[in-house]
């Protein structure tokens, strides 16, 4: 099957039904290994056991940003090619990306209190991440409240593209401004600065969260395709009833 064939909703549903159980099982297995390794990881010499919050906070931050990147690519598909699956992909990613961004912000606050002495500061990294959450909420509002679904989808796609400007701001905020948030310590020139005893469980947890994102996204896309079929069939039923009444 060629990749382009998957752009057909019916073929996509067949593929999703086939791979979702395997993806869910792989996600559960990776979480079991990741959590076991995370609980066994040593305390940080400065932060103590609070470093365990990192195993949630960092993957959630990455996936919050990944979700918006995915929505931006899907937005191109919606606006340029007007492909219905692109809109389905964008709409399905929004609540999942928002949830991961929310997890990132709250676990960050819970990590900040014992390590920085405060839950929140208006520094560039924290503020740009909060802006990302607000952008997600704006996209969800467009999808959920638009009377014309097509216009809502196009408006959400434009916002997804405009909001992508925030992604490099989040990534480089710790380099461009003097922030309380630490600079990058995993993906940086010169390699990671984290000891392998902590880096390995972090990467396993990141992989587990990534698989969870993919699994949820495929499942949410499947639901959205079914919802659109239901809508089409309800409209046809209403049309048939109207024709029968005249």
């Amino acid at each position, binding site marked *: 099957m060629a990749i382009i064939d998957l752009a057909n909703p019916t073929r996509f549903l067949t593929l999703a039904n086939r791979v979702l159980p395997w993806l869910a099982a792989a996600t559960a297995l990776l979480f079991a290994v990741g959590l076991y390794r995370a609980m066994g990881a040593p305390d940080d010499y400065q932060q103590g056991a609070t470093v365990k*919050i990192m195993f949630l*906070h960092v993957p959630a931050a990455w996936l919050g940003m990944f979700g918006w990147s995915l929505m931006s690519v899907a937005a191109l598909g919606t606006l340029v090619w007007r492909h219905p699956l692109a809109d389905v992909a964008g709409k399905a990613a929004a609540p999942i990306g928002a949830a991961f961004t929310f*997890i990132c912000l709250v676990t960050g606050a819970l990590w900040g209190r014992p390590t920085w002495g405060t839950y929140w500061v208006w520094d560039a990294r924290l503020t740009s991440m909060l802006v990302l959450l607000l952008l997600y909420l704006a996209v969800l509002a467009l999808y959920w409240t638009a009377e014309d679904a097509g216009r809502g989808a196009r408006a959400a796609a434009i916002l997804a593209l405009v909001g992508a400007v925030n992604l490099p701001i989040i990534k480089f905020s710790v380099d461009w401004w003097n922030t309380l948030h630490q600079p990058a310590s995993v993906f940086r020139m010169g390699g990671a600065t984290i000891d392998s005893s902590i880096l390995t469980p972090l990467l396993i947890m990141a992989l587990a969260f990534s698989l969870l994102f993919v699994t949820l996204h495929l*499942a*949410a896309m499947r639901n959205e395709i079914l919802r659109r079929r*239901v809508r089409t*069939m309800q409209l046809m039923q209403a049309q048939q009833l109207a024709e029968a009444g005249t």
Partner: protein
Amino acid sequence: MIGPHADFIIASYALTAFVVAALIAWVVLDYASQRRVLGDLEERGVTRRSRKD
């Protein structure tokens, strides 16, 4: 075992577990709901025009 800041660590894991569980429940319940409505419509003889099977 997890030091003087155990409350913050436990709260982080509990919140994450709650949000992930909510996401899973959302997709599972939504899927069941869409399948049920589709089944009802098909039982009443409503079909999509594009459907070839």
